[in-house]
């Protein structure tokens, strides 16, 4: 708990200077309307000079009880709402929910649909990671330029999403047992072109950033997250891997058809902000490899399992948990069905960026207040998902 300022919190600066200068700690509330908090997120910091001595995250400003909404409608009804969780990555959100329902109901997804899902999800991962790096640089003070480079590439991917699903960001694309509409040959050709051109952008992006002196000075040895703490605090995704935790749900669970692709899982060794930046660059390169293989091998077939009924869809009583490797970490859905089975009795989202915030204070203690902003930026949060 942060102590209220009414308490006497006077401390002396350095030994020997007692009685010369009296200082006291200062409580600063960063957010919820601050541009560096990536949304309506607030941090209650206690500062000693410029150094952070305590920090508590405050959330809930965007809380809309997503879970209760979903418990009051049919199973499929909440699919469009999952788009609004992490509104950068609607495709992986859709997949996580569809995967959980398929697990509960025992639906088998046709091979072609699995490949389409992989293509869409890996494009989403590229889109998310490039934008996150752009936002991180924005937090460092590189106003606009890196972010706009990233947004230029993102736009190409969003155009493809719009052509396939009808919407740029709120795609509402996946269905239980497959996807809503199939990708045409033309869409696949566009995807191949994006994949062919992306490494050039990434090389250029890296040339500007990876060995940039300002970036190195501002990010190395900042916000270190030790490996043991990362595992113990349920940190997942690129943030955990930057701390050296070798855990990628695509490899562990082999959901979908991920078992067929040849790709590596990059691991960091220090666990600082720079590692979290560089892990994302490397993950984009691996995503490109997956995309190349998926676009080469995609078989023909139905895009949705024909036996799945859209109307009157029911699930036998019981519960189950399904999870995917979303760009921000482990996105899971815990679902409970009761006797009627027409709608979820319990619908719980395990949001990665909410849980990744657990260690925000540990990473920020002892750093300057300017570093808090990049440490938060390197966690990669989206408030639609944190607050639900």
């Amino acid at each position, binding site marked *: 708990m942060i102590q209220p300022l009414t308490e006497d919190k006077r401390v002396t600066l350095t030994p020997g200077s007692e009685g010369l200068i009296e200082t006291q700690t200062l409580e600063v509330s960063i957010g919820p309307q601050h541009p560096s908090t990536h949304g309506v997120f607030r941090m209650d910091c206690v500062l000693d000079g410029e150094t952070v001595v305590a920090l508590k995250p405050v959330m809930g400003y965007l809380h809309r009880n997503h879970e209760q909404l979903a418990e009051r409608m049919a199973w499929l009804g909440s699919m469009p709402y999952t788009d609004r969780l992490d509104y950068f990555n609607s495709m992986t959100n859709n997949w996580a929910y569809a995967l959980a329902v398929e697990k509960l109901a025992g639906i088998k997804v046709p091979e072609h649909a699995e490949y389409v899902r992989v293509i869409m999800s890996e494009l989403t991962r590229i889109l998310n990671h490039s934008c996150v790096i752009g936002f991180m640089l924005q937090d460092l003070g590189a106003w606009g330029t890196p972010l706009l480079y990233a947004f230029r590439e993102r736009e190409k991917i969003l155009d493809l999403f719009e052509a396939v699903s009808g919407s740029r960001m709120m795609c509402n694309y996946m269905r239980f047992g497959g996807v809503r509409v199939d990708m045409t040959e033309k869409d696949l050709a566009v995807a191949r072109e994006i994949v062919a051109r992306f490494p050039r952008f990434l090389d250029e992006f890296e040339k500007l950033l990876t060995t940039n002196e300002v970036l190195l000075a501002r990010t190395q040895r900042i916000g270190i997250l030790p490996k043991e703490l990362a595992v113990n605090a349920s940190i997942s995704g690129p943030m955990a891997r930057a701390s050296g935790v070798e855990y990628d749900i695509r490899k562990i669970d082999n959901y979908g058809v991920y078992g067929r692709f040849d790709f590596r899982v990059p691991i960091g060794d220090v666990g600082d902000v720079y590692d979290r930046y560089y892990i994302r660059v490397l993950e984009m390169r691996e995503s490109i490899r997956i995309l190349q293989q998926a676009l080469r091998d995609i078989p023909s077939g139905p895009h949705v399992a024909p036996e799945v009924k859209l109307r009157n869809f029911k699930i036998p009583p019981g519960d189950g948990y399904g999870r995917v490797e979303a760009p921000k970490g482990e996105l*899971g859905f815990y679902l409970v069905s009761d006797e009627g089975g027409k709608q979820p009795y319990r619908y719980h989202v*395990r949001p990665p960026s909410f849980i990744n915030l657990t260690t925000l204070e540990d990473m920020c203690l002892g750093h300057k207040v300017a570093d808090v902003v990049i440490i938060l930026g390197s966690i990669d949060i989206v408030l639609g998902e944190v607050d639900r």
Partner: protein
Amino acid sequence: MEAIEKIKEVAAQAVAGAQIEIVNSTPAAQQPAILVDREHVYAVAKFFKEDPRFQMDFCSCVTGVDYLAKGDKPGFIEVVYHLYSVAQKQGPIVLKVRAPRELDECHVPSLTPLWRGCEFQEREAYDLYGVKFDGHPDLRRILMWDEFTDHPMRKDYEPPADYEWEPTPHDDTLQRAVQEGGIMPPTAREELEKAKKK
């Protein structure tokens, strides 16, 4: 991972006196859970975390579920933990614990001392379901605002008619505001004056 019966047997041997049951998931999901009584859930969780056969070092998902009373069966709140092992790349073990629905009795031991990852998730379960986690270092509301009094994810929750102040109260809300003599924004006063004149 071993079969659930084996896990149950091993846990029952390790923690003396623990009452352990197996709860089935949907037939297709194949994720049977282990239901432990409240007194022993901490010891069982600690066993799963530290035993070299399981090494459940990663507590992925924590949530509450509200089951209303059915016939003569009393209702209960169930807290569900999904445990995975990063070290051995196995899991999940689904751990469940039940508490009565009555607010003053709705206590379970907190597992935050074992896994830091439970910290925010248990706060969320407390906020939305009213489960008090004994031993949690910082049990406050996390999503709802601090002044909020109820637990909105409970199945019998009924939202009040005007729990948030309407910017321009009208009709019933305006009437009630007048009767209760509560604080009013200036616009509301104007509205009220107009209504009186009519």
